């Protein structure tokens, strides 16, 4: 761990050097350097916080993933090897990975289908209506995520309101709780705002006259959407999809509460590796792979639609 700190230091130095190289008159360069230093000072608490509580633990996980499980459920870090990564090829792991990815994709697609019309509607309203709608989108955040998931647990339960309702309208009682349907329902509910907001931001920026122009040029409603609105809102679609897909893939709370124990997903499986199976290297390897997938997605997001947020 001690090796890491100087590494970061040189990183920061490089940043300020890069600026000093800019072809500005000397006093301006000096001025710029001073401002940089002040900026660095102001940003320092955040830097330190992130390094201590985020970067270091993350790197710890990566390092552990190359270790070996010892007899007492700890990790032997003396011999680095790729054993844990080899285990990832296991049939069970592949099933869990595919299942998690599948659920994450379904969640993302449903979120997109639900959010797009909503975001479009919101973006085309008056300022006042827009703000009211935005507040409604944000309201769920005021309640703890865990509490909201338990609310769904109650709603979908055997004697819950949803089951009573279907019974009342003659469809008989439903047993959604502890199925993948319940998990997707909970995930869609939980991550919907992450889809709505970037979509709204992207659509809101599109000049409404472009839609009018397309209609004027003989496009029907669908063609207008297909050739003008959709391509221009794509950055928002990419951003929203990634923002929903990433947390869905590693979701733990929602599948744990609404999915029961029957359908294990990646998040729960990793927790099991750490807490129950006490296979720290394997849990770390799984986490690392998940992180790499997310990192790739994030890079795609910043490349393609990063400007939307």
């Amino acid at each position: 761990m001690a090796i890491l700190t100087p590494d970061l230091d040189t990183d920061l130095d490089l940043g300020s050097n890069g600026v000093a190289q800019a072809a500005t008159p000397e006093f301006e360069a000096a001025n710029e350097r001073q401002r940089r230093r002040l900026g660095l000072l102001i940003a320092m608490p955040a830097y330190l916080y992130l390094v201590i509580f985020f970067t270091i633990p993350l790197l710890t996980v990566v390092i552990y993933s190359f270790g070996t499980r010892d007899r007492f459920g700890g990790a032997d870090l003396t011999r680095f090897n790729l054993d844990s990564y080899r285990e990832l090829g296991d049939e069970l792991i592949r099933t869990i990975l595919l299942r998690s990815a599948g659920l994450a994709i379904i969640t993302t697609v449903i979120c997109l289908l639900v959010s797009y019309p909503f975001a479009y509607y919101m973006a085309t309203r008056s300022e006042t209506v827009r703000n009211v709608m935005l507040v409604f989108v944000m309201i769920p955040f005021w309640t703890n995520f865990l509490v909201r998931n338990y609310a769904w647990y109650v709603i979908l339960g055997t004697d819950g309101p949803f089951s009573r309702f279907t019974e009342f309208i003659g469809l008989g009682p439903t047993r959604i709780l502890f199925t993948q349907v319940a998990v997707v329902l909970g995930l869609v509910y939980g991550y919907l705002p992450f889809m709505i907001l970037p979509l709204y931001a992207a659509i809101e920026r599109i000049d409404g006259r472009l839609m009018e122009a397309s209609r004027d040029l003989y496009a029907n409603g669908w063609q207008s959407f297909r050739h003008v609105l959709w391509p221009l809102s794509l950055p928002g679609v990419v951003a929203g999809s990634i923002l929903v897909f990433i947390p869905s893939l590693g979701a733990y709370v929602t599948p744990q509460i609404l999915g029961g124990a029957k359908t294990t997903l990646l998040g729960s499986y990793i927790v099991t590796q750490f807490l129950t199976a006490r296979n720290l290297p394997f849990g770390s390897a799984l986490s690392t792979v998940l992180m790499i997938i997310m990192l790739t997605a994030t890079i795609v997001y910043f490349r393609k639609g990063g400007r939307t947020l």
Partner: protein
Amino acid sequence: MTGTSGSVTSTSPASDRAARAEAGVDAVSISGVTKRFGTGEHSVIAVDNIDLNIADGEFFAMLGPSGCGKTTTLRMIAGLEFPTEGSLKIFGDEVGTLPPNKRPVNTVFQNYALFPHMSVIDNVSFGLRMRKVDKATASKKARELIDLVQLSGMENRKPAQLSGGQQQRVALARALVNQPKVLLLDEPLGALDLKLRQEMQLELKSLQRELGVSFVFVTHDQEEALTMSDRIAVMQDGRLLQVGTAEDLYERPGNRFVADFIGQTNLIDATVSADDMIVLANGSRVRAKADHPVGTKVAMSLRPEAISIGARGSVPTEHQAESLDGVVSTATYLGHAIDYHVNVDWIDLEVRAPAVTSSRRFTPGDEVSVWWDRHSNWVVSG
């Protein structure tokens, strides 16, 4: 009023148009159209019961200050707004609530509204592609139009890579490629600088003559309207004040607003008196032909360039009944003319005298007389 029947290459729409023109069908016919936004107490009347006919092949301008309803009227013709009341016909067909994609008109939008994610050629061929014209034909026609607006070689550029003037041409080509029966233009030159605007005015005018299609043009710039249009409709507060040629509006304005809005003028309050005379506010009687009954409050419109200026007492005898005495308050040399402000008792008259070398010049403080030809004034309702 109808323009020359143009030399349009494709036969069917042109001959169709010719046939309809012979039958006397107007390109656009608006009757009793009202547009109200919102409902109940908060409703705003944007267009108030207007009647308007635009002939085939006509270059027609709608002129007025912002918020006068000219753009709303244009949008109703385009189908981007629907009339609350009244009838709107394009070549005889009622189009009241027909969506824009079902109307034989195209629009050049204010600030062009080019599709930013498409190249020039894709923008221009958009209308054809939406109507399922096959790809080869669509791109061939688009290229023809790009040639017509002199943008060959820029087919693959994106709108952001073009200058304002070039974007304007793309917008024009994108609308015209569809061979609209009426082309609608919403402040198309508003975003261009002065020199480019004057160039484009001439180009638009000649393009319109060449195509023989009706152009309906919305502008707040009266000079632009005067130079380009066959006829002009002046609007204010949703109402249509006057429709006529540039000469009609300039020389025979229908009311005070039109007189004031078109060009510069001196508006002098007066009361109609007997024997073709009007009484000005200071009691002086001047000769002016007014169709109003005796005693009506009116305003006399006198264009600055229609007023002659001379030393006090030098009024030619035949103009004695159309003269006033005053004192020069300012004199501004404009090169081709001298702009005087002459204080006549209760009003300031603007006088524009040609700056001929031989003509006498006046300086502030000079006592002068001003007079005008009896046919050059015009009385409008007060």
